[in-house]
């Protein structure tokens, strides 16, 4: 009874001040509310996504997006800076895999990852998915497939007319990106597979110039 009377006597603002101080001390004990290195993942959800391959983007699609100058996505090159400077897919930005979670990317952005093959981008995809990034995609086949199918499309000399028609389109795309369409004769197929063309100096716009401009476009706040 005494206790209640005592509590009633205390002014409301004093009570609020006491609560604030109490919460402040609790905060001081908790000290850091963030824990950035631990993530919770929905394993089942991810497994289904892997199974249905909804997280893949083909090199043709990317080529198409670049040609159409789409800017609703960010193309991320996960390789090292040196490799990136040697060659990169136009409009791409270089974020090495260790820097991926440093806050460069926002969770609501459409992100397309690529690496040399596909393993690093798949691993990076998992990291981003675990951190609840909404739409992360992998470039199927990575840079290898980009070179194979976009930069240096091949036509066997005894191809069907349909194949030739397709090759015409592929050649146009290839030239757009500064590549070289190739016609392979029967005897040379094995040679060209065993001894793939070294990447020539490519005149296509490099990521650093285009990527920079695109970065600015997407960097605005809310």
């Amino acid at each position: 009874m005494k206790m209640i009377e005592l509590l009633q006597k205390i002014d409301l603002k004093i009570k609020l001040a006491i609560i604030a101080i109490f919460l402040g001390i609790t905060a001081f004990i908790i000290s850091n509310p963030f824990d950035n290195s631990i993530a919770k993942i929905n394993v089942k959800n991810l497994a289904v996504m892997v199974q249905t391959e909804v997280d893949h983007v083909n090199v043709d699609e990317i080529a198409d997006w670049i040609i159409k100058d789409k800017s609703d996505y960010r193309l991320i090159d996960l390789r090292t800076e040196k490799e990136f400077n040697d060659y990169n897919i136009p409009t791409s930005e270089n974020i090495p895999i260790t820097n991926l979670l440093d806050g460069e990317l926002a969770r609501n952005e459409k992100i397309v990852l690529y690496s040399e093959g596909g393993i690093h981008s798949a691993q990076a995809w998992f990291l981003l998915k675990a951190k609840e990034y909404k739409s992360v995609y992998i470039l199927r086949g990575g840079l290898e497939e980009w070179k194979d199918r976009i930069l240096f499309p091949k036509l066997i000399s005894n191809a069907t007319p349909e194949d030739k028609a397709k090759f015409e389109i592929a050649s146009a795309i290839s030239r757009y990106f500064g590549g070289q369409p190739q016609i392979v004769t029967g005897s040379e197929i094995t040679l060209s597979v065993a001894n793939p063309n070294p990447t020539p100096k490519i005149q296509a716009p490099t990521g650093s110039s285009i990527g920079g401009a695109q970065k600015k476009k997407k960097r605005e706040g809310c």
Partner: protein
Amino acid sequence: MNAPFFKFDFFSADFSLVIAFAIGIGFGFALERGGFGNARILASQFYFTDMRVLKVMFSAIVTAMLGVFFFVAFGWLDLSLVYYTDTNLIPQVVGGLILGVGFVVGGYCPGTSCVSAATGRIDGVIYLLGVMAGIFVFGEIFPLIEGFYYSSNMGRVFLPDYLGLSYGMIVFLVVLMAVGAFAAAEWGEKKMAAKSGGVK
């Protein structure tokens, strides 16, 4: 919109305006109830006769800060989704001084001028016109001052990182500061009241 819900597509851009409207009405209502629609009350802050502004601001800061801290600690809020502006130290200090001078001269800050205009105060309406004129002039001369506007960029700086203290420590210190400021304000008000013979 700074709310993480919007970024996560929980609602559309159109609906975000509805939410902004509701929050804005709530904000304006709270300001009006706090007496912030009256230039005399606001200005008396600068003569230390009525410390209401300081008390309301510090209450809001402490409440929001504690709320955010514990929401993050409980995992209800993802602070990495909240948008922060960069710190451009010198331009922001200059901007703060300009706003402060305007506050003393006109008796309102931008938010409270809207409140007072909404309740039909003529000085509030005039002040709001001044705000619009200022925005217009700023927009027109922006190309000239753009270099200065973006100068001394420090990126996104947070006090805990800058001072090398934990977030909890900063929270605790700000609470102490607020409680101290409250006590000092109450004491100051009594002093000033006694000085002016108890007449407010």
